[in-house]
């Protein structure tokens, strides 16, 4: 009997488009996991995080990027996300290490990522995002969870004019339409 291998589809099917000089593209990643810090185990988790990813555990609404390109960000007191773009040993080495201290949930299929990049990206985002995106308040490397067009979004600032937005994959089409519409409305 032939061996069947299932291949995961990307939520936005590799979408990429430029609207009003804003580059909108699906952010592709291999895996996304959430880490919860067990009660009274923050110290152990901090040590474990450093050992697993080689970077200190970020403070709330901050992020780290490891040498192998893994993005880690902290949403709340006891909640973090780790996004692995393409590092091959992540599932076999890093995740088992993290499991020694954190509660881990694989959320890869639950989220889609969208990169938005361009000189007018702030003008586009300010139409749908209730956050203050001024660099004094929301600096490079900062991350926040918020709501855009009634949809849950995690927003990460990669550079001054480039953001990565994570939103639930089940509503990724609606979210993309919001971004496209907002880009046209500049």
């Amino acid at each position, binding site marked *: 009997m032939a061996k069947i291998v299932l291949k995961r589809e990307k939520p936005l099917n590799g979408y990429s488009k430029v609207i009003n000089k804003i580059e909108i593209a699906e952010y592709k990643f291999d895996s996304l996991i959430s880490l919860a810090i067990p009660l009274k185990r923050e110290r152990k988790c901090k040590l474990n995080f450093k050992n697993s990813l080689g970077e200190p555990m970020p403070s*709330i*609404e901050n992020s780290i990027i490891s040498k192998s390109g893994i993005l880690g960000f902290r*949403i*709340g*007191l006891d*909640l973090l996300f780790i996004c692995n773009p393409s590092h091959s040993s992540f599932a076999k080495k890093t995740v088992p290490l993290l499991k020694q201290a954190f509660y881990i949930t694989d959320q890869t299929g639950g989220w889609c990522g969208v990169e938005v990049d361009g000189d007018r990206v702030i003008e586009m985002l300010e139409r749908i995002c*209730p*956050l*203050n995106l001024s660099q004094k*308040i929301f600096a490079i490397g900062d991350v*926040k*969870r*918020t*709501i855009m067009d009634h949809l*849950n979004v995690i927003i990460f600032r990669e550079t001054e004019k480039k953001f990565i937005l994570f939103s639930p994959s089940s509503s990724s089409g609606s979210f993309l339409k919001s971004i496209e519409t907002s880009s046209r409305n500049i």
Partner: protein
Amino acid sequence: MLIDHPLLGLRDSSEFIYMGDAKLLNRPNWKSQNSMTKFIDYGYLRKNPAGVHKELWYHEQGDRSWLVVTRNTVTHEILKVELARET
């Protein structure tokens, strides 16, 4: 309306869900003699004041924290915001 989250700063109220009177934090002791009366009060009776009121707000589209917000229901002025876990 903006809510000054103790950890995250000013955030739009659309990120939060209003979860009712903050008295819900003080669950009655089921062993007490008049526990039935206390639970009816806890479950069904609210003061609904026109003025200063302590409320529970859940930051669902944010860090998933529970807040106790002291708010004037007439003016919507927010007087104090605390993490529920620290009250």
